[in-house]
């Protein structure tokens, strides 16, 4: 039987490297194709990595806690008596041991990405670049299992996959690090266009075709499966974040880097403009109290905002759209992301088809997603693929703010707190509840009047909250 190289898979579209949280198989264990081999911490979440071949896990090259660049060899599966020396020779040094002994000399050869089993992707895809920019917002940090960061994250980028691997030994080091080769997601052209149309992050879809190619049925399965119906990854509870001593330099976590990259890209390419409305929340406040007292059902203002946005989006498809350069992709479905603060960053779990869910369902789902987001137990499909995002800082007493659009969406709603304020009605002053929301919109897609009309609809719905329940 053939040797199967265990290569660190690209488990999220922005993943450059991963940390092996743990190996679920030991050296010498029999392994079947599809078995979970290891748990990998990416820049977004902890993911299970499956075996691509059967045999015996003969060698683990990067132990638990170790980091490795995407595409590097981290283990070898083969028959019990198969000669794996060649495969190992190609690997040279394991990518980055978790805690190298302080005195360890620099290995003669630099960390060496082994030739991946896939054909070396020679060039970027010709026509449409893979819609990786359609990835989700920045997400949970990797910081967890390796508290003392052994090295700055960018220390060991994978080298281009070499041709036939020469014997290990000193070899020329490329002058400059080359971008990760594992970066190309293999997908059929149809799968690519379907993913682009539906705003599905291709990098997160498991491919069932040859060599892991993503094909039509994978996209359909991904789109069809309810996010909540998937088994959550078994991630360990996050350790407490490291205390920060003022004055120290903090290495940039994968998550921070993702946030920095994506939001800078959004802010500097999408021309943002902002429209704010004030919403009379008296009826919503009354309804919420009524639900709580009468029905013992807790619904947050944010749940109502989500539902209102989802409903409004169905009437304003251009707000539920993406700028694609030469065209605007309107999305057939309404998937609303909710920004959730987590240690060291934020993540936006997605309520899929929120327009078709009841307020109570949305409420339950957001609670579940946010809870698991904080424990970093979200699966990628649960935080990717949103078509619109709601960010709420009302709980911090913020009255209003502006948010940066979560690419490739075309708008985000920033929600302030519900405040009791003096309001003048027909010349009389009285107390009333008001909430300010600010829409950031991408002017390439949405114009001011449309933003105003969309917000008008959100306001109408929230001011008549019963409409959210029908």
């Amino acid at each position, binding site marked *: 039987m053939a040797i199967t190289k265990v290569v660190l898979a690209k488990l999220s579209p922005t993943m450059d490297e991963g940390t092996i949280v743990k190996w679920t198989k030991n050296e010498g264990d029999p392994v079947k194709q599809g078995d979970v081999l290891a748990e990998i911490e990416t820049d977004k979440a902890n993911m299970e990595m499956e075996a691509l071949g059967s045999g015996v896990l003969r060698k683990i090259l990067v132990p638990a806690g170790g980091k490795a660049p995407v595409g590097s060899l981290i283990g070898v599966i083969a028959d019990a008596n198969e000669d794996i020396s060649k495969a190992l020779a190609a690997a040279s040094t394991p990518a980055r041991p978790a805690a190298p002994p302080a005195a360890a000399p620099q290995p003669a050869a630099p960390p060496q990405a082994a030739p991946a089993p896939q054909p070396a992707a020679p060039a970027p895809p010709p026509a449409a670049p893979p819609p990786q920019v359609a990835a989700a917002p920045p997400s949970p940090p990797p910081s967890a299992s390796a508290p003392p960061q052994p090295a700055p994250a960018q220390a060991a980028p994978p080298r281009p996959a070499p041709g036939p691997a020469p014997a290990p030994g000193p070899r020329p080091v490329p002058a400059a690090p080359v971008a990760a080769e594992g970066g190309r997601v293999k997908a059929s*052209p*149809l*799968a*690519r*266009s379907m993913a682009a149309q539906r705003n599905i992050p291709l990098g997160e879809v498991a491919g069932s*075709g*040859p060599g892991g190619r993503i*094909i*039509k*049925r994978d996209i359909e399965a991904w789109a069809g499966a309810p996010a909540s119906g998937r088994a959550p990854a078994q991630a360990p509870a996050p350790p407490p974040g490291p205390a920060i001593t003022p004055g120290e330099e903090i290495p940039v976590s994968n998550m921070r880097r993702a946030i920095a990259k994506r939001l800078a890209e959004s802010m500097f390419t999408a021309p943002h403009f902002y429209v704010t409305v004030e919403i009379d929340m008296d009826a919503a406040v009354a309804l919420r109290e009524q639900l709580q007292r009468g029905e013992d059902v807790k619904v947050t203002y944010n749940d109502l905002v989500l539902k209102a946005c989802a409903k409004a989006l169905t009437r304003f498809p251009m707000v539920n759209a993406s700028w694609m350069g030469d065209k605007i992709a309107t999305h057939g479905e309404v998937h609303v992301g909710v920004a959730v603060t987590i240690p060291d960053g934020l993540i936006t779990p997605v309520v899929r088809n929120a327009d078709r869910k009841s307020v109570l369902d949305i409420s339950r789902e957001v609670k579940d997603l946010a809870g698991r987001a904080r424990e970093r137990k979200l699966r990628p499909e649960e935080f990717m693929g949103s078509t619109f995002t709601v960010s709420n800082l009302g709980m911090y007493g913020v009255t209003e703010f502006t948010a940066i659009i979560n690419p490739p969406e075309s708008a985000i709603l920033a929600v302030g707190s519900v405040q009791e304020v003096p309001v003048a009605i027909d010349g009389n002053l009285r107390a009333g509840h008001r909430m300010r929301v600010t829409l950031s919109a991408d002017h390439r897609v949405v114009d001011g009047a449309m933003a105003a009309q969309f917000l008008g609809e959100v306001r109408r719905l929230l001011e008549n909250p019963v409409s959210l329940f029908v």
Partner: protein
Amino acid sequence: MAVLTMRDALNQAMKEEMARDPSVFILGEEVGAYQGAYKVTQGLLAQFGEWRVRDTPIAEEVIAGVAVGAAFIGLRPIAEMMTFNFSLLALDMIINHAAKYRYMSGGQVRCPMVMRGPSGAAAQVAAQHSQAFESIYAHVPGLVVAMPATPKDAKGMLKSAIRDDNPVIFLENEVLYNLKGEVPEAEYHIPLGLAEVKRPGRDVTIVAWSRSCITALAAATKLAEEGIEAEVVDPRTLRPLDEDVIFDSVRRTNRCVVAEEGWRMAGFGAEISDRVQRACFDELDAPVVRVTAEDVPMPYAKTLEKAYLPQPEKIVDAVRQVMYR
């Protein structure tokens, strides 16, 4: 409708066109007294006389040369190649003369000839007599290449070919001469350059012509048993190629298999595959897969002959491949 063999359908086409137009005549080896090596010209000598149904020596270049010259001066010759394996001797006449003069004379000289006869494998006639040469002829600008798969297409397309003002390479298939099918009794024509969906289906497009089209239809029947609905598209004319029907189909099915009796290397299926990947790139869910003859001279042994040719099973396998089954 009458049920005819392809042999009789072809015979009818020539008979009707010769009766209609006195400039149409037949020449070739054994076309007259012997009634045709494969009896396609049966009865024509008796009906039209030896002036219009002319037996020739075994000299393909002469047959082609006479046909080209006759066509240049306004006749409409039908030159029969006993099989197209022998047409190699006539390639200079076909490629350097028939295909070129209309262009080189600025349209002053036309070459309204048909060269017809069987191409492809029969049964154990081995390496020199089993070759499928459509890719060679389809390569040449100035030629029309027609390849009917059914009696109805054979008659309708041959009548169009005889009336066409360009040299038409009309490739029949010995194995299909006895294939029976419905043929309209009234006068009809099938224009050259029109593809046809021979069997509709939603899951995969199989493009195949001539004998391979019949093989593909058999494969589609097998596939239907396992729940795969294959659409079989018959281009019927390779040059000019009706690519739109192929593209429309592939855009619906997202998958394409091309089956042909010729060799793989530089075969006509590669041309289709190339056009499909460019026109339907974003609609393809799998690479286009080709089923061809094996890349060797045709063996004589019966078992090897079977292994060499596209079979329904090979097309079924190719379909499974593009379906990721």
